[in-house]
C-alpha cells in the first residue's frame, strides 16, 4: 500500500471533499446506484420483517377464541389473554435483570474509566467485552448446571428470613425461578451497558474533573459531581439498550426457568412466569397450523416492544451529537 499519509488533524470525518466529484460515467453511476440500493434494501428488509410477521400471524389475530382453544397448549380465553402474561413475564424478567445489571455495570465502567491503573484499563475493558462473545446457549448451560445449585442455599435463606414478603415466598429447590433467569440475563447484558457507559464516562471534560479535584474534592466527590451528571443520559440509553437485549434473549430463560402463565410476582417460586421468546422457542419446533400463527403473533408483540425500547435508546443517544462509539 503506497498511499499512506499521516492523518491530518483537520480531517473532518466523512465530510465531502470540496472538489466536485466526476461522475465517472456508467461505472460510477452503477456503483452509486448499488450502494444506495443496499442502503434502501435495509429499510425494505426492516419493513419486510414487520409485514411478513403480520401476514403469518394474521390467522391467529383473526381467529375466534374457540378455534384457538383447539391448540393443545392454548388455555386462555382469547389471544390477548394469552399474550398478556407472557408480556408481563418478559418485562418482569428484563426489569429484574436491569435492576441487577445497571448498578454493577456503572461500577465496572467507573472502575475502568476512573479507578483502575491507566495501563490496565484497556485490557480490563477487553476482559468484560469477552462476556459478550460467549454464545447464549453456553450461558444457558452455565446458568442451569452451575449457577442454580450455587443459588440454592442463598434462595433458601432469603425465602426463610424474608418469606413474609410475598416477593420472596414459596421457594422450592431447584432454583428454576424467574430470579435465577434474571441473574443470567443480567450477566448477559452487563457488557453492552458497561461498554456504552464507559465510553461516556471517558468523555467527561478533563477540566471539570481537574477543577473539582483542585478544589479539594475526594475522588468519589469528583465522580459524583463531574462524571455522573455528565454521563447520566449515556447511562440511561445504555440501560435501554441492555433492556432491549434482555427482552429478546431466549436460551438463557428457556434453559433456566420452569414456565408458568400467571401474572405473578413470586420471584422465587417455580412455574409462575414465562417470557415470550422462551415460550416461542419451546413450542415452535413441534407446532403447526394455527399454533404457529399464534406463536408468531406473540413474536410480533415482542418485536414491537423491543423496537420501541431500542428506538427510545437510540433517540437519547442521537440527541447527544458529540457522543459516538455506542454499540
Amino acid at each position: 500500500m503506497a498511499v499512506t499519509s499521516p492523518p491530518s488533524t483537520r480531517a473532518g470525518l466523512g465530510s465531502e471533499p470540496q472538489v466536485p466529484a466526476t461522475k465517472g460515467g456508467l461505472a460510477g453511476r452503477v456503483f452509486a446506484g448499488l450502494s444506495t440500493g443496499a442502503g434502501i434494501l435495509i429499510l425494505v428488509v426492516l419493513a419486510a420483517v414487520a409485514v411478513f410477521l403480520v401476514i403469518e400471524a394474521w390467522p391467529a389475530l383473526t381467529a375466534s377464541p374457540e378455534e384457538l382453544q383447539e391448540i393443545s397448549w392454548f388455555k386462555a380465553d382469547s389471544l390477548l389473554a394469552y399474550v398478556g402474561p407472557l408480556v408481563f413475564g418478559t418485562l418482569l424478567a428484563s426489569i429484574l435483570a436491569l435492576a441487577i445489571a445497571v448498578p454493577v455495570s456503572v461500577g465496572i465502567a467507573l472502575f475502568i474509566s476512573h479507578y483502575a491503573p491507566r495501563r490496565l484499563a484497556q485490557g480490563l475493558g477487553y476482559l468484560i467485552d469477552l462476556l459478550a462473545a460467549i454464545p447464549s446457549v453456553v450461558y444457558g448451560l452455565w446458568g442451569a448446571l452451575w449457577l442454580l445449585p450455587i443459588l440454592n442455599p442463598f434462595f433458601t435463606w432469603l425465602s426463610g428470613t424474608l418469606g413474609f414478603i410475598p416477593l420472596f415466598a414459596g421457594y422450592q429447590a431447584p432454583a428454576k425461578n424467574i430470579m435465577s433467569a434474571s441473574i443470567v440475563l443480567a450477566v448477559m447484558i452487563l457488557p453492552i451497558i458497561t461498554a456504552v457507559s464507559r465510553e461516556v464516562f471517558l468523555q467527561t471534560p478533563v477540566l471539570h474533573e481537574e477543577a473539582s479535584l483542585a478544589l479539594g474534592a475526594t475522588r468519589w466527590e469528583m465522580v459524583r459531581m463531574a462524571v455522573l451528571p455528565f454521563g447520566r443520559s449515556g447511562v440511561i440509553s445504555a440501560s435501554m439498550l441492555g433492556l432491549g437485549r434482555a427482552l429478546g434473549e431466549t436460551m438463557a430463560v428457556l434453559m433456566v426457568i420452569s414456565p408458568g402463565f400467571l401474572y405473578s410476582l413470586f420471584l422465587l417460586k417455580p412455574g409462575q412466569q414465562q417470557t415470550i421468546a422462551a415460550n416461542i422457542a419451546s413450542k415452535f419446533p413441534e407446532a403447526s397450523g394455527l399454533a404457529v400463527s399464534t406463536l408468531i403473533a406473540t413474536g410480533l408483540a415482542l418485536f414491537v416492544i423491543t423496537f420501541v425500547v431500542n428506538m427510545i435508546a437510540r433517540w437519547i443517544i442521537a440527541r447527544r451529537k458529540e457522543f459516538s462509539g455506542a454499540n
Partner: protein
Amino acid sequence: MTVTDLTPATPGVPDGSGTVQLVATQKRLPRWAPWAFAAGGVLVAFGILAVTGTPTIAGVLGLGAVLYALGLTITSRVVEGARWATDRLATTLVTFAFLLALIPLVSLLWIVVTRGAKLFGATFLSTDMVGVYGDMTSGGIWHAIVGTLLITGAATIISVPIGLLTAIYLVEYGRGALARWITFLVDVMTGIPSIVAGLFAFSLFTLIFGPAYRAGIMGAVALSLLMTPVVIRSVEEMLRLVPNELREASLALGVPKWLTIVKVVLRTSIAGIVTGVMLSIARVIGETAPLLLTVGLITQVNWDLFDGRMATLPVFAYRQYEQGGVGIDRAWAAALTLILIVMLLNLIARLISRLFSPKTAR
C-alpha cells in the same frame, strides 16, 4: 464520634495497625491500610466460618469482603472523617463491582473447559450421531460443525456485500434525510431479538415454499438479518477513519469517485473491514434460537444448504442438554467447541487488525 463506633471494626483490624486514633483529625490512613484490612477481613471470615461450620472459598471471600468494607469504612470515618470514609466506600464498591463481573467469566470458562474436556477429542469432533441412542457415549459433532460452518458462511456471503455497500453509501454518498434514516434504523436493527429474526426467516420461506420447507438457507437468512447491521456499523467506522486527504488527492488526479472508493478508501481500510467482519461472524455463530426455529436438528451430515434440516453446534448443545444423561456431557463438549471457534475468530480478527492495518490508522 465515640469509642462505640470503633468496636465493630476491631475484628477487621490486624495487630499491627496501631495507627488508629480515636480523635478525628486530618490524619490519613497509611497506603497499606486497604491491603491490611483485606487480609484481616479474609482471616477473620475464615475464623468465624471455621468456628460456626465448614469454611468454603465462596463463603470466606464473601464474608471477608463485607468485613473489609465495614472495617475500612468505619476506621476511615474515625481517623479521616466522613468525606474520606465515603470515598473509601465508593472505591471499595466500584472495585467489588468489577470483581463481581469476573465471577461469571472465570467460572463459565472454567466449567466449560473442565466438563467439556470429558468427551472432547478427535473422535468426538470427527463422528456424527447416526445410530447413537440411549446411554451410548459414542457419537460426535462432525455434522454440527459442518452445519454451523455452512450456515454461518452463507450468512456471511449474504451480509458482507450488503453491509459493505450500505456502509459505503452512508460514508461516501449518503446525505440528507435518507442517510439519517438508514443510520438510525441500522442502529435499531442491531436490537432485533434473534428469535424474531428466526420467525422472519420462517415466515419468508413459508410464504414462498410452503410450510413444510426446511433448509439451512433459512437459518442463514435469519443470521444475516442479525449480522448485517453489525457489519455496517464496523465497516462504517473503518471508512470514516480513512483520512480525507487520500480521497482528495485521488479525485484531484482525475480518478472517478467510484474508483477512488474501490482503489483508495477500501484498500486503506481493508484490514479494519476484515476484522469487523470476523467479529460479526463470531457474534452470530453462537446464535441458537433462530436456528432452533428454522433449521432444526438431524443426526447426519447434510452438505446441501437448500434442502432439508441441518445440525448446528448451538442447537445440538441445547437438544443434548434437554435429553439429559450422557447428553449433558455432549452439550458441554459442544459448548467447548463453540467457545473455541468464537475465541479463535476473535483472535484472528485482532491479529489481522494488528498486522495489516496501515500505520496511520488510530
